[in-house]
C-alpha cells in the first residue's frame, strides 16, 4: 500500500517559538524579500505561526497555530493549474513542480489557506551566504509558485536508504525540518495509511479538527485543540 503522508499539530504543545519557521527557511532555501516588499504581502514563509488573542485585557490568552500547506486530498489549487505544475502524487502529496510552473498564480488564488507563495524576484543571497543553501532543494527562480513540500527531499532520501537496506520505512524515520526543530514536539509527521503510526493515532483523536473543514478540501494536517480548562 502506498504511503499517505500527513501531519498532526498539537496546539496544546505549541509555544509559538517560531523554530519551525526558521528551520523551514534554512532547509528549503526560502529567500527573504526585504521589508518594503514584505509590506506588500510578498514575504514567503512556507510555514507561519498565526497568533490569536482571546478575551479582554487584562484577562487575555494568546493562542498559536502553525500553518503550512495542508496537503489537501481535494486540493483547490490543483484543478486550476493550466500546466499541471500543481498536481497530486501517489503518496498524496500536493506537488508543485517549479519548472512546469508558468506563474499564472491561479493556485494561490484558489488556496483557502494562503500557503502558496510567488517568487516576485530572483532570490538573492549576499555571498558567502549562498554556501549555506541546501543542495537537495531547488533554488526557485523568478516567476514560479512555491509552497511547503512536507520536505519531500527528506522523504525521498529516507525511502532510498530504506530501499538500499531492503527494509520498510519506520514510523518517525522521516522528519520534515519543522518537525525536527519543534522542541515542544507539537508537530508529528508520518504515514496516515499505517494505523499504528503516531500521526494516525493523533489524527483520530477527539481533539482533532481540520482547518476550514467545511470547505471540503480534505486536508491531511490535523490540529489538536487545547483541552478546555
Amino acid at each position: 500500500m502506498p504511503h499517505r503522508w500527513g501531519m498532526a499539530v498539537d496546539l496544546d504543545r505549541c509555544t509559538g517559538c517560531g523554530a519551525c519557521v526558521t528551520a523551514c527557511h534554512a532547509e528549503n532555501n526560502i529567500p527573504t524579500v526585504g521589508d518594503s516588499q514584505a509590506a506588500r504581502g510578498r514575504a514567503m514563509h512556507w510555514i507561519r505561526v498565526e497568533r490569536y488573542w482571546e478575551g479582554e485585557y487584562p484577562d487575555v490568552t494568546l493562542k498559536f497555530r502553525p500553518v503550512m500547506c495542508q496537503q489537501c486530498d481535494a486540493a483547490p489549487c490543483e484543478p486550476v493549474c493550466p500546466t499541471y505544475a500543481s498536481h497530486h502524487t501517489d503518496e498524496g502529496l500536493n506537488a508543485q513542480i517549479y519548472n512546469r510552473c508558468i506563474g499564472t498564480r491561479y493556485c494561490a488564488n484558489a488556496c483557502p489557506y494562503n500557503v502558496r507563495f510567488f517568487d516576485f524576484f530572483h532570490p538573492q543571497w549576499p555571498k558567502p551566504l549562498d554556501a549555506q543553501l541546501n543542495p537537495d532543494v531547488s533554488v526557485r527562480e523568478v516567476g514560479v509558485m512555491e509552497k511547503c513540500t512536507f520536505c519531500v527531499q527528506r522523504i525521498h532520501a529516507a525511502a532510498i536508504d530504506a530501499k538500499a537496506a531492503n527494509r520498510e520505512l519506520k514510523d518517525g524515520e522521516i522528519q520534515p525540518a519543522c518537525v525536527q526543530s519543534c522542541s515542544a514536539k507539537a508537530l508529528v509527521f508520518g504515514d496516515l495509511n499505517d494505523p499504528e503510526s503516531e500521526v494516525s493515532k493523533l489524527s483520530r483523536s477527539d481533539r482533532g479538527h481540520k482547518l476550514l473543514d467545511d470547505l471540503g478540501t480534505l486536508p491531511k494536517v490535523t490540529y489538536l485543540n487545547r483541552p478546555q480548562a
Partner: protein
Amino acid sequence: MVIAFALGLAACGSQPQLSDAVFTTAHRSPGEAARHFFNSHPRPQQPLAFPHKTHIEKKAECTDCHETVERGPVAGIPSVKACMICHSQIATSKPLIKEVTSYSDRGIEIPWQRVYGFYPESHVRFNHAPHIRAKVDCAACHGDVANMTVAERVVDHTMGFCVNCHKQKNASNDCLTCHF
C-alpha cells in the same frame, strides 16, 4: 516560459544592480539568458588534461576515484590527495604528474570544471546511488569515458533521456521524483 522571462526582466528592473558579491539565479545579461534558453554552454576547460583512458587501462575502476557514487547523491571529484596516493610513487617524472604534485605541494585542490550538471539539469535533484544500485552503467549517462582522454559532454541529459530509461526500468515517472 515567455511569461517567466518577461517577469524576470521586469523584476530585474526593480532590483538594485547585481554585483558579484550577491548570489542570485538572475541571468547577468540577456545573452546569458538566451544561451540558457537554447541550452548552449561552453566546453569546460580543465586545468590539466586528465586521461581517463590511461587509468582504466591500468585496471582502475570508476569507483576508485569517484568514491561516493554508490552511497550518495554525488559521485565525487577526488581530492588531489587521492591522486597522490598512487602518484607519489608512480610516473613521478611525467610533466602532467609534476603539475599534480605541484598542486599537492601547494596544498590546493585542482580546480576541475563541471562537465555535466548544467541548465536544464540544474532543475533536477539527481541522486547517483539508486541508479548505481539499479545497475545502470556509468556509460549509459556519461558516454564511453573509459576511452576518453579528457572527459567530454557526449550525452545530452534531456528529460526525454531520463524518462525513457525510467519507463523501461519501471521506475517512477512522477514529476516530484526528480523535480523538487
